[in-house]
């Protein structure tokens, strides 16, 4: 069941080529989706895609307003939220319809959800937490930023440092765990269906149901990721 990864070494850095492939595809899908919608953007006569994008922007705006508590943000924050939610959702469901495994002396998995790998989710989590710090420094200044670590008591300083790391790790590993588990169960169901005609019919229904459930989980996880990102930004702002 465990496949090896296609690894390439460039400048003594290892690259997982399947993740490079799938994350590039994800980014392209998100980019084209937004580009096509924004090209035909008309403020008073919206198309169907535009209504969907507007709904998404308002959705993210509402989350941000609840968590950060301001009426108006810099549009970059909204744009970041929309990108994150779309990127993670597309990445989550990318591995659902099929997977590509090249059989050889060691089977290599080329196509799976990029978020089913901890490298991707941890990178995103680290970036989001770092962006939260950057945003706090920009809005509050260095002095107040460092003061935030010893508020309300100085003794809480080690806790505050630990909190930053734990929030980063939970943010990344939660997403990874959900999507990885989903894909493992999906591949188990598909493998079980391979062993005969009767099995194929028997296991097609749970496979179908599990795929539908994985789409749901993917959407929920994308929502959770964005919400928590804004929670951490808002917490830095006031904590």
């Amino acid at each position, binding site marked *: 069941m465990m496949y090896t*990864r296609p*690894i390439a070494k*460039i400048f*003594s*850095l*290892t*690259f*997982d080529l399947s*993740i*490079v492939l799938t*994350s*590039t595809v994800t*980014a392209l899908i*998100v*980019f084209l989706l*937004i*580009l096509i*919608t*924004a090209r035909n*953007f008309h*403020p*008073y006569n919206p198309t169907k895609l535009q209504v969907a*994008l*507007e709904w998404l*922007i308002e959705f993210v705006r509402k989350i941000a307003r609840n968590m950060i508590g301001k009426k108006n943000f810099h*549009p*970059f924050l*909204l*744009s*970041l939220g*929309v*990108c*994150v939610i779309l*990127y993670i959702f597309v990445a989550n469901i990318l591995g659902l319809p099929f997977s590509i495994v090249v059989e050889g002396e060691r089977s290599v998995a080329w196509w799976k959800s*990029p978020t089913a*790998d901890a*490298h*991707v989710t*941890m*990178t*995103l989590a680290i*970036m989001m937490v770092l962006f939260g710090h950057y945003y706090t420094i920009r809005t509050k200044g260095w002095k107040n930023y460092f003061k935030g670590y010893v508020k309300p008591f100085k003794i809480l300083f080690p806790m505050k440092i630990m909190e930053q790391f734990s929030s980063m790790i939970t943010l990344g590993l939660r997403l990874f765990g959900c999507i990885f588990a989903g894909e493992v169960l999906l591949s188990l169901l598909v493998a079980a269906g391979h062993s005969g005609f009767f099995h194929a019919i028997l296991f097609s229904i749970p496979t179908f149901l599990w795929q539908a459930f994985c789409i749901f989980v993917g959407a929920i996880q994308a929502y959770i990721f964005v919400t928590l990102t804004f929670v951490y930004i808002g917490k830095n702002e006031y904590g």
Partner: protein
Amino acid sequence: MGDIYIFDIPISIGTMLYQAFIFSALVFVVYKLCLKKVINMLDERRQYILQQLKEVEQYKREAKSKYLEQMKELEEAKKEVKQMRENSNKQALYILNEAKKEANELRKRADEGMEGKKGA
């Protein structure tokens, strides 16, 4: 497999760097090319609609106050008409009474004249 090991877990730095690069590229390109424009447009539209609502509210208030004014004027005009009618009725009665009085006077005088002639 990995560049560094944390608790025996292999971590490939190259994959993470590539991921960071592609994601930040996506965020910046999308922001610069599309979403900045879209979000500004949405804000503009919100302002426009809010302004329109405000204007409608103002027009409504103006219309209401004008309606009330008109009603007041109408009421006053009705009152005036009533007053005028009463006055004219009074005047008519007065004139009628005066005329009757005058007629009676004339009749009296005439009767007196007739009696004077008979007596003579």
